[in-house]
């Protein structure tokens, strides 16, 4: 079974702060991490390999320092790592990102491709399904359990609003996973040692046979026009007094809003 995991290096959004004067992100000192959902994707890939055999490749598109994310994945047990890096990839939106990644996936070849449900920087959750369309394969989103895998099919639980669906798909397939699926393992010491010197393949546009018109800013249909800090809510009131008084004041307000 050839398994490819798509991972993204992201700033830890829990640490991102806004400069209140300029309304811009303060990124200094914000650590870069593997997108938390992608850790679950890696774990899922490793578990599939342990069960049915195969090879796990991790793939990322990003700046040169994204290599660190790949080494971390290798230390968890992935067999191979590929970094797509080139200036022309910069500024990619989800369309250009999924085009680029799908080109690399076609080159590697895969039976199962696993992505996180969404990346915590953009929160779009679009790259996985868009890639599946480029690759002309089925996808199933929000996987919370992998029930069974055979040579040419897979049975899954897909998380939905009011419960879950049991879905069967042919292979090859692309999955996006939620955190309930598993508990990502920590890198072993041996894994860390091996990952330190492991070779990381670096590919640019010619290596994946990509059309430059579809890459980076130029290939991206969407543009960020503007960025601003979210507005603080205007009406804010702390209800003072003893508990009785606080609750009475709240009840009064709720009545005014016709909520009671």
């Amino acid at each position, binding site marked *: 079974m050839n398994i490819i995991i798509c991972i993204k290096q992201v700033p830890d959004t829990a640490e991102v702060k806004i400069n209140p004067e300029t309304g811009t992100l303060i990124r200094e000192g914000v650590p870069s991490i593997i997108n938390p959902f992608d850790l679950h994707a890696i774990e899922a890939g490793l578990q599939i390999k342990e069960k049915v055999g195969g090879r796990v490749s991790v793939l990322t598109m990003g700046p040169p320092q994204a290599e660190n994310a790949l080494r971390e994945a290798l230390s968890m047990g992935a067999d191979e790592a590929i970094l797509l890096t080139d200036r022309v990839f910069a500024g990619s939106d989800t369309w250009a990102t999924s085009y680029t990644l799908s080109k690399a996936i076609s080159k590697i070849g895969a039976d199962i491709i696993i992505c996180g449900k969404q990346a915590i920087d953009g929160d779009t959750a679009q790259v996985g399904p868009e890639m599946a369309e480029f690759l002309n394969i*089925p996808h199933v989103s929000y996987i919370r359990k992998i029930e069974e895998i055979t040579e040419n099919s897979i049975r899954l639980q897909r998380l939905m609003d009011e419960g879950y669906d049991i879905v069967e798909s042919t292979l090859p397939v692309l999955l996006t996973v939620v955190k309930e699926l598993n508990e990502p393992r920590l890198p072993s010491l041996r894994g860390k040692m091996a990952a330190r010197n492991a070779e990381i393949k670096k590919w640019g546009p010619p290596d994946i046979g990509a059309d430059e018109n579809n890459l980076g800013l130029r290939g991206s249909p969407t543009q960020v026009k503007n960025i601003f800090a979210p507005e603080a*809510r205007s009406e*804010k009131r702390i209800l003072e007094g003893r*508990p009785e008084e606080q609750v009475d004041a709240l009840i009064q307000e709720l009545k005014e809003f016709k909520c009671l």
Partner: protein
Amino acid sequence: MSVIVNVDKCTGCEECLASCPFDAIVIKEGRAFVNEYCQVCMACITVCPEGAIIEVEGEESKGRDIHGFKGVWIFAEQRGGKIAPVAYELLGAGRKLADELQTELSAVLFGTSEEGDRELIKWGADRVYLSQDPIFEKFNDEPYSQLLSSLIREHRPEIVLAGATPIGRSFIPRVAARLRTGLTADCISLAIDKTSGNLLQIRPAFGGNIMAIILCPNNRPQMATVRPRVMKRGEYNENKEGEIIQVKAEGLTSRTKVLETIKEASDITVNLQEAEIIVSGGRGLGDPKGFRLLEQLAELLGGAIGASRGAVDAGWISYSHQIGQTGKTVCPKIYLACGISGAVQHLVGMQSSDIIIAINKNPKAPIFNVATFGIVGDVYEIVPLLIKKIKEVREG
């Protein structure tokens, strides 16, 4: 399009550096230089006192033919034969956009619905494209995206909106990929740019730390998924007329198959995303029994139970109740946060609620920054009192 610095005008004053949200401007040899991290957000252009930063055409994604695209479409999602409430919200938002563009509003419905397709017209649609093919009874991404793509190719709407629900967010990206157009996820506000006529799509990013306005200037249709419960429904008009067009679902295939749909009915949970009142608990409850207390209050108010990740990770309540970045996004009339500190990852899931009430022991808890009404106090003291007083009010 790209942003460059006119080096003859640049004085190296560094004013522009702080304006860039992407750290994309650096000073080289005493002059500003825009590097490859630039996302062409234009924030720096107005900041430069010399007018040295300019936007230049060229090297642009090849302007595709965007003429001849007309009309606003919304995808009306049905689940188990019921039209999802977000469909009516989309009709409200879509109607406004269509009126502003002086064009028509159409709804697309796959599968059958109890309410009937006429209902979509009464809520604002001029036209409904309907396919009742049995393939749409259960949700599979491929047939949904195949038929929607081919309808869009045939009728060429300029805007297509869908709900940012599990279904919309799963299959709409395939449609956008296939049509080679942009898709903006999880928008919370939409408007038309007066000068260009482009759709301005506003959404949170970086875990809700910032808001971004996204454009899709050179490709059509402009596509967006819209977060449920943020757009207002439009006017309901019993007498509104409209056209229903039956579309043929030919040649659709699916390599996935839904074998079973399992509803996880927990005690009093209604669908969190559709609840009008949510009573939510965090690690401050101290133990799982706290949720029994909150359930009493929720039951009294006819609301649903939410939770922070702190409470879910502690094992006090199941993940399906989690609200926030890695849980659900909700927008009820009233959100009551009990013993929740208000971490940004929690806030992004609930801060567009109409009224936020926070009960927390710590007056410095960040939840008070977003609370309409804040009570500094102990949950175990305040909530029982609240239950008692609400009962008194009810009993008159």
